[in-house]
């Protein structure tokens, strides 16, 4: 089963940066929490129940048009590196990979559709976490796809449902629709002009919430913010999606304005920042992940404002995924100390930028054979 996830691009369709506003909105995710009637929820669940649930979902998945021909992964049988690669690709949650490097309990799994855009985590905090991950700002589409899967599985599995409270979940913060829609946005402009605090405050006043790159409890790195709905009960799914979309569009607009202001009033400073970031990534010999994320933020801004011709957002997305600690370990085929990890990271970034990220600045012409970087 391990072979199934070795394809280097498993679950990385969103890297293509093909969706709308892909230079600012990295990805859109919509998930629905569901539980099965007649089984205890995660805090009290027995191992036998977990296994039964996984088996039932697996059988239902075989009948599902969406999941047919996809991949079934039993996480309890995967090694630590494979599990954490899935985590770093945002295909599974922290809860699903097991605590402190230990394997998760039996019956914990991931079932994805071909192409891995849509799938379901089994026996996470809720029995089922159906999810859809797309590139760019595509909330409606993501909801439509995940709702379709919910229909297919719900027609075969008895979901826990309450006539007043709606879909029942392990945590009351998810009850009702069970829907959490989130959009991962890159906001360096607002951070640089120091308006980000105001914008984030506005977001929370509008009933939305923001988090760091890795979801709940994670820190903000590389100027990435995950914006999502806070409440799940009392509004229907379409309204939740529409409200989030409206606010995100405003945030994008503010970010564009911020960038325009910066390019108008501080062009030289910004250009310098961007080229310095590019230079460090292109030539540094040791890089921590946080440093890469921060430098990538500058370079991403540069690509977005057409200062780094020839460099694609796709390349930046690829670097972001493959320089995470477990991805480097997987590529090296062994575990790495932090210092080794930093060396491997810098080598990877240099190699990728040398092959697909060479940028020639205005007024500089480097001969084709001139520069070779290993």
């Amino acid at each position, binding site marked *: 089963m391990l072979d199934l996830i070795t394809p280097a691009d498993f679950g990385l369709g969103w890297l293509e940066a093909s969706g709308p506003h892909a230079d600012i909105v990295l990805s859109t995710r919509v998930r629905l929490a569901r*539980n099965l009637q007649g089984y205890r*929820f995660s805090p009290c669940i027995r191992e036998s129940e977990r296994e039964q649930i996984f088996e039932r979902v697996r059988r239902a998945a075989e009948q599902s048009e969406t999941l047919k021909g996809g991949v079934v992964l039993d996480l309890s049988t995967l090694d630590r590196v494979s599990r954490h690669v899935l985590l770093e690709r945002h295909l599974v949650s922290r809860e699903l990979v097991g605590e402190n490097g230990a394997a998760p309990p039996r019956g914990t799994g991931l079932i994805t559709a071909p192409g891995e855009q849509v799938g379901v985590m089994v026996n996470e905090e809720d029995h089922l976490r159906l999810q859809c991950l797309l590139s760019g700002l595509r909330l409606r589409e993501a909801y439509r796809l995940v709702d379709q899967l919910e229909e297919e599985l*719900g027609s075969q599995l008895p*979901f826990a449902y309450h006539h007043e409270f*709606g879909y*029942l979940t392990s945590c009351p913060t998810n009850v009702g629709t069970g829907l959490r829609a989130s959009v991962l946005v890159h906001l360096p402009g607002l951070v640089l002009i120091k308006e980000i605090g105001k914008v984030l405050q506005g977001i929370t006043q509008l009933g939305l919430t923001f988090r760091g790159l890795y979801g709940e409890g994670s820190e903000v790195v590389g100027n990435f913010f995950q914006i999502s709905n806070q409440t799940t009960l009392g509004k229907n*799914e*379409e*309204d939740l999606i529409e409200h989030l979309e409206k606010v995100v569009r405003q945030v994008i607009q503010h970010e564009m304005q911020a960038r325009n202001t910066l390019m108008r009033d501080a062009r030289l400073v910004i250009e310098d920042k961007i080229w310095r970031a590019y230079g460090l990534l292109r030539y540094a010999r040791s890089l921590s992940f946080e440093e890469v994320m921060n430098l990538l933020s500058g370079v991403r801004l540069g690509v977005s404002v057409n200062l780094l011709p020839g460099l694609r957002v796709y390349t930046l997305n690829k670097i972001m995924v493959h320089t995470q600690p477990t991805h480097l370990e997987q590529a090296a085929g062994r575990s790495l100390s932090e210092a080794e990890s930093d060396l491997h990271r810098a080598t990877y970034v240099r190699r990728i930028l040398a092959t697909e990220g060479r940028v020639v600045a205005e007024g500089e012409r480097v001969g084709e054979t001139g520069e070779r970087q290993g």
Partner: protein
Amino acid sequence: MLCDHCGDREAVIHLTQIVNNQMSTYHLCEGCAAEKGLEPGVGATNAALSDVLAQMGKGLAAEGARAVGPCAYCGMRLEDFKKTGRVGCSHCYVTFDAHLRTLLRRLHGGTQHVGKVYLPPDPTKEECQERLAGLRRKLEKAVESEDFERAAQIRDQIRDLEAALECWT
């Protein structure tokens, strides 16, 4: 990660605060977080779950509510729920009805689900009718917001359900 305050214990609470447009994040252990008396978020519906859970017992005690026993199905006790913020099974929503209602109102601003109406694998006629009403509301909404792909998807579901309901009579 260690607690920013005492530098001694593991940080379990990550608090992001925005004061005068400056965002700062604190990582605190449980003890120091309690000492600081973590400020609740903006507005009732944005209250952090932990704050609401901490408040829960107090209000109910004042209302003279009786202590409830553990859930007959999963054995979860109210104290356990208050600690973890997770219920043990769907019956907990009945067992701790009064407590959860208060909690849901504080978290979401209400208790009435108005989203998708679930159609179980072997539905009764009433369940089909309820679902149909729900789908019609959704269709209206989709047309109104000009989401025509979604509207087409819902229209198909309505058609299937209407056909199924006709077989009943």
